[in-house]
């Protein structure tokens, strides 16, 4: 029995030692708790925000967009755009090196761009799928060691910002790797290099160059929101993303961490599907009338939705563009159900004997956006209050709702969010760049919007562009295809030992984080 007792004591002691070894974070390390697994380090296959937030520390880009929308040089020091707007010529900073020791030159930049586009690689990440599609990327050519030319198919006012999202990687290493190797062995020129990756568990980065305060960055995958909060309050992580609104108060009361709430750049809206097939559906005919769409703007109490369901005070959106770049003359639609009823009556949709004006289907996906299911329920109730008989259809996000969205086959009402930016109003507006754009889920086709894009391209100065943009945004505000809601807030839990400020664009960059 004494032997057994000794064994038990020894086991308990070793576990206590093991436990003490996993205590607080050291001063040269910063730990971030992420909500979703990452899947790859292949720079041309990155598509999720969490994945991008990690690899941005490993790979550099030509320019970098700051949290306030300002642009700073990164690998490139200068840019010249050809008169026809089809060639972007970057001058690179001399002396940059890759993690494999090779000098980073224009050849690496050109290789990075061309490799991402190569159909043989079948990459589906942000670079080939979003950036290249949006700018009409043709090819990239190294003019000399420090000069690279990026060619696009047509002039594009937001090409600069989009090209700044492409990760530059190192040709010598990648040319020698298979695609499978490239998915686990990132070779960039950034401040940090990958030390280890345990899928589903953690990623460890190590500093190799400035900028960067901490020697090590550890990303821990913690899918459950309450577990992330507990780890933050226990002092085991420094930053957590996607704090649930109902946990904000607990974290703030802990005394060891605080929640930073920021108004993000993701535009949340209810879309009106105005396509012909949907016009034939119940309610689809009603929303074809801009007066009906305008009436419904008054039916939703967006500030209350924000305060009660998102735990964040918000000002209602006035349109498709983030506030700093929006039409400053526009004021948010107020919550005025009496006005909504009056306008619906005037539009020819009075309440019938059953109390309803018309029936309409409202579709949404769940589990993608902040408290989305409850937000949708609230919106449905507000619309019901003004006489719409809502047939609510909330479905699984990934495999059911997304295919419908991508086929532009949701509605007549649908709930959706679209990522935005602060560096240009045109970035936000290009969701509706063309009538047949893949992102024009509403099938809106008002020529007062779409015909003006040519005017923007022809404008000689930013001031001229701004006039046109404001006119377009007025049209969108009056007769647009969105029921304006809010810009989704983001909640970050930040340890009291850390000095770090969250950005509104969901980018979690740690270069400038310091200890208090």
């Amino acid at each position: 029995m004494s032997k057994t007792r000794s064994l038990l004591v020894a086991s308990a002691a070793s576990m206590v030692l093991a436990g003490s070894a996993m205590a607080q974070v050291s001063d040269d390390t910063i730990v971030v708790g992420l909500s979703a697994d990452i899947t790859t380090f292949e720079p041309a296959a990155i598509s999720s925000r969490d994945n991008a937030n990690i690899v941005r520390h490993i790979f550099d880009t030509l320019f970098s967009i700051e949290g306030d929308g300002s642009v700073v040089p990164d690998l490139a020091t200068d840019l010249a755009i050809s008169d026809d707007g089809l060639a972007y010529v970057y001058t690179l900073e001399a002396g940059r090196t890759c993690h494999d020791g090779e000098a980073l030159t224009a050849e690496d930049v050109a290789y990075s761009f061309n490799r991402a586009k190569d159909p043989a690689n079948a990459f589906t990440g942000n670079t080939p799928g979003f950036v290249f599609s949006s700018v009409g990327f043709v090819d990239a050519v190294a003019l000399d060691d420090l000069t690279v030319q990026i060619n696009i198919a047509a002039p594009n006012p937001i090409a600069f910002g989009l090209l700044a999202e492409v990760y530059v990687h190192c040709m010598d290493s990648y040319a020698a790797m298979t695609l499978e190797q490239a998915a686990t062995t990132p070779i960039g020129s950034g401040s940090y290099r990958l030390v280890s990756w345990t899928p589903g568990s953690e990623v460890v980065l190590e500093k190799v160059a400035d900028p960067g305060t901490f020697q090590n960055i550890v990303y821990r995958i913690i899918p459950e929101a309450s577990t992330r909060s507990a780890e933050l309050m226990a002092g085991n992580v420094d930053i957590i993303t996607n704090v649930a609104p109902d946990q904000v108060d607990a974290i703030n009361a802990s005394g060891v961490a605080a929640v930073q709430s920021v108004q993000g750049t993701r535009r949340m809206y209810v879309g009106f599907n105005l396509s012909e097939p949907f016009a034939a559906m119940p309610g689809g005919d009603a929303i074809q009338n801009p007066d009906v769409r305008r009436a419904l703007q008054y039916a939703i109490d967006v500030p209350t939705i924000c305060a009660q369901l998102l735990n964040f005070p918000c000002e209602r959106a006035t349109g498709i563009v983030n506030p700093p770049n929006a039409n400053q003359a526009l004021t948010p639609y107020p919550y005025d159900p009496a006005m909504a009823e009056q306008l619906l009556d005037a539009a020819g949709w009075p309440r019938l004997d059953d109390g309803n004006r018309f029936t309409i289907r409202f579709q949404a996906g769940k589990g993608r956006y902040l408290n989305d299911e409850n937000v949708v329920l609230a919106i449905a109730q507000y619309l019901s209050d003004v006489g719409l008989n809502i047939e609510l259809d909330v479905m699984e996000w990934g495999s059911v709702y997304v295919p419908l969205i991508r086929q532009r086959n949701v509605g007549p009402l649908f709930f959706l969010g679209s990522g935005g930016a602060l560096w240009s109003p045109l970035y936000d507006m290009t969701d509706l760049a063309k009538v047949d754009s893949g992102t024009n889920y509403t099938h809106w086709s008002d020529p007062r919007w779409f015909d003006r894009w040519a005017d923007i391209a022809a404008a000689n100065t930013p001031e001229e562009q701004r006039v046109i943009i404001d006119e377009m945004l007025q049209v969108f505000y009056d007769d647009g295809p969105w029921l304006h809601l809010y810009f989704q807030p983001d909640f970050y839990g930040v340890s009291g030992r850390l000095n770090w400020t969250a950005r509104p664009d969901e980018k979690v960059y740690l270069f400038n984080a310091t200890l208090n």
Partner: protein
Amino acid sequence: MWTFVVRRLLQSVIVILGVTLISFISLQMGGDPTFLFVSERASAEEIEMIRRALGFDRPLHIQYLTYLWNIVQGDFGNSLSYRQPAMNIVLGALPATIELTLFSMFFAISLAIPFGVFAAIYRGTALDGSIMTMAMFGQSIPSFWMGIMMILFFGLYLQWFPISGQVPFLMPLFQGDFATAFGNLPSSIYHLIMPAVAVGFYSLSRNARLVRSSMLEVLGQDFVRTARSKGISERAVVVNHALRNAWLPVVTMIGLEFGFLLGGVVVIETVFSWPGIGRLVFNAINQRDIPVVQASVIVLSVIFIALNLIVDLIYARIDPRVKL
């Protein structure tokens, strides 16, 4: 016995084929998965290019038969998300789940048997009542709620145990890195305790009740009365005679539960950030990463079939009345 084994192995091939077919059809019922892999700004041509590259343009029966032909040759395809061999991804996550499952089963069975025996021996007493009340709660409380409460109380408030995460033991062991594996062992167990209790508490409760009812049935039989009348100690009667017969149904239940837990601990893996196969499959289904889902289904099916075979063999070994 060997005839039995060979027959079961042949049956298992049919079972695995059936499982792959059902999972394939189920995944296809959500529609074209191409849209989940392309940007929202992709043109129709780009979508078609990706559809062709991923093989989704072929008729479904061709996709399935091609898949079967490939797996016969050991090619389980590449993960659409990870862009690495799907089977490697699955086998990489499996050790974590095996660790959790083994430890939780150890916790459950090592307590369920004595609890059930004592409850049966002291039937009708306060001890019996307490154990059965615990068992009732254990079967009523959702494991995810229990996990979260344990995190808050033992992890955050008392700081007795790590809140989340895993320190691997089996993975380095399988890779032959014994120094790392055994160096990790204390910490690995330390990280296992809370999730294993959260998972195993339900099993503990159910098996305790099963052992109790089985013991009560056996303790009332003639051979037990005969053993007592021969002067054998009560302890020997219970352990050597009664329990040996009473735990037969438990053996069956253990085999079934182990297989179930391997694929069914996704909630606990999520709560405790455990990088196991349950979470992997759940994410793969959401992302329509078909090769990973298919590879996972095959692996879990093989394990489940093997476990059932082992359980049947053990059952036949310990109960001479059972003929294979």
